[in-house]
């Protein structure tokens, strides 16, 4: 395994390169040659096998095995099969897709073309969030170049394989990052996630077999094709031999570091770097010489690591062992010791109340209710009982307790659960000090109007 000290960036190799986003630059770095070789030499099932054996796990948040996902497509389907590339990156703290699309769009396209070939898709839609106009321009320019160079369109490089890639613009809704929400949105509807099964591989976009993969996953596919399965598996954390269900965490990963660090940015490291090493070595430490109070390990929906848990490795299995939801998008947000954990949780609850799509009652009501309680606590009317109520909401909304269709509510629940479990003393102190006469009340109280949600 390569260690994080000697590791050289691969996914980010174009960053800082003059005209790194151009076709010419991408080719000069070895790009598209692997695609041509692969189209000439490999059949689609061999490409699926290559990605499967690399151990690549989806980079969008859930960490599902990419190659395995592809095998769920029906065999010998007459088509069409669709590939949707998820560029609706909206998880708070996350911006690695943006950097990939702006700085190295051809890497995304090569990965997309290879993935489409493997899955026998003839149309790929890149669902791009509205908030990324520069990514739109950069990707569209790259698509135009790729068509002109014969990497897209009919009969790509004489292989008989044809592919069109289209950009599809979102309209500022977090839920479109959920794969079936994305599909509904692509179809022109409100982005209400679908009940599964059927999974998209069986019935997805336009009722046809569909694969949805993240932008960074596409970049990884391009690099696996260029550098090989063995290279990919030499990076990261191998599967735990004592856990037959652990597929390991292989490959490089883009970590987005933001919040209270000296040098926020997107950094590439082998999967498994610890939060502390990331913050200290890449981020220049917590800003202003302060200490971290808490760190979000992978986007706000993953919950919180306490300062004592910063040696947690950021691989797919690590954050879960510290009680977090998972690695998520690997967006690490540092919260320093001066921040009130009540304010943090208010910000988190407001986000999810705003972004709940409203389809499932436990999520729609739970996210809104938790925000109302946080508003009341911050207004000096909190009760200790509210912590029990918040914990109850946290443990009852979501896919895991089985009360919602998609995972948005799990993401809303985890910051609540982690914050209360890991910072309970601070909550209690805040409530007692801000509401000295009423903190022991247990009778129902009217909610305050939400001032800041919409």
């Amino acid at each position: 395994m390569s260690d994080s000290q000697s590791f050289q960036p691969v996914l980010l190799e174009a960053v800082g390169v003059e005209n790194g986003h151009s076709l010419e630059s991408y080719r000069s770095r070895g790009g598209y040659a692997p695609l041509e070789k692969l189209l000439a030499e490999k059949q689609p099932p061999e490409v699926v096998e290559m990605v499967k054996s690399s151990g690549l796990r989806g980079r969008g948040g859930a960490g599902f095995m990419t190659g395995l996902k592809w095998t769920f497509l029906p065999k010998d389907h007459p088509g069409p099969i669709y590939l949707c590339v998820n560029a609706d990156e909206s998880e708070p703290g996350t911006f690695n897709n943006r950097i990939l699309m702006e700085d190295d769009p051809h890497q995304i396209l090569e990965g997309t073309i290879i993935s489409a070939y493997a899955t026998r898709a003839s149309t790929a839609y890149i669902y791009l969030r509205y908030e990324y106009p520069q990514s739109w321009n950069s990707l569209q320019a790259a698509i135009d170049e790729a068509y002109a160079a014969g990497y897209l369109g009919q009969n790509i490089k004489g292989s008989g394989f044809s592919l069109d890639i289209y950009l599809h613009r979102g309209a500022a809704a977090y839920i479109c990052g959920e794969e079936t929400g994305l599909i509904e949105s692509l179809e022109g509807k409100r982005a209400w996630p679908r009940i599964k099964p059927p999974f998209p591989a069986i019935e997805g976009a336009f009722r046809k077999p569909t694969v949805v993969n993240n932008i960074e996953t596409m970049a990884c596919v391009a690099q696996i094709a260029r550098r090989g399965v063995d290279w990919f598996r030499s990076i990261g954390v191998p599967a735990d031999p004592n856990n037959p269900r652990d597929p390991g965490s292989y490959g490089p990963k883009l970590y987005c570091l933001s919040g209270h660090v000296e040098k926020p940015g997107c950094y590439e490291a082998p999967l498994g770097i610890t939060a502390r090493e990331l913050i200290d070595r890449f981020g220049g430490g917590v800003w202003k010489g302060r200490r971290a109070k808490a760190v979000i390990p992978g986007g706000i929906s993953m919950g919180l690591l306490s300062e004592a848990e910063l040696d947690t490795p950021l691989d797919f299995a690590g954050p879960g062992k510290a009680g977090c939801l998972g690695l998520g998008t690997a967006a690490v947000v540092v919260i320093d010791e001066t921040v009130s954990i009540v304010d943090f949780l208010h910000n988190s609850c407001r986000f999810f109340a705003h972004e709940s799509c409203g389809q499932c009652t436990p999520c729609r009501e739970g996210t809104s209710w938790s925000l109302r309680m946080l508003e009341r606590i911050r207004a000096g009317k909190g009760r200790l009982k509210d912590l029990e109520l918040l914990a109850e909401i946290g443990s009852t909304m979501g896919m895991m307790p089985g009360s919602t269709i998609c995972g948005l509510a799990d993401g809303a629940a985890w910051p609540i659960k982690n914050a209360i479990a890991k910072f309970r003393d601070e909550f209690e102190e805040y409530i007692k000090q801000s509401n000295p006469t009423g903190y022991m009340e247990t009778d129902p109280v009217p909610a305050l109007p939400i001032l800041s949600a919409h």
Partner: protein
Amino acid sequence: MIAQRKVLTDEMVAQIEALAPRYPTKQALTLPALHIVHDELRHVPLDAVVEIAQLLDLAPAEVQDTLTFYQFFHQEKPHGKVRAFVCRSISCALRGGEQVLDHLCSQAGIKPGETTPDGSLTVEPAECLGACDFAPCMLAGDDLHKDLTPEKADQFLNTVRGGAS
């Protein structure tokens, strides 16, 4: 039925129709069509919803359903000449994003979500803009404003006001 269009121009219709070969259904053109109208008019009035529906063989309610789901689209009146989204999600909030939002709004004399009386600017709070490496940030038109401070917000406001006069 050939209806007399009141809102959609021939150009908009041509733009929408040009995208049709990309999708296997007409309904998939809903979001692109809404964007095309919104880009031009800065809102999508009800008449436009009806006309988009006619164009796509949908019920107006289907288009309206989609439009209202996405908070992005204004309907009753156009947003300002410049539309600024100020991020309030966690990475920006930790670095003063909400103060910038409040400052910008108070200097512009509006509340978040409102448009200045001269129609030059709409300021809206946004959830994560995906530019946390430049927190706090703001997206105004196609321009990402990075590492905002109240002073930078003032400069932005001056530019916007200058542009409107």
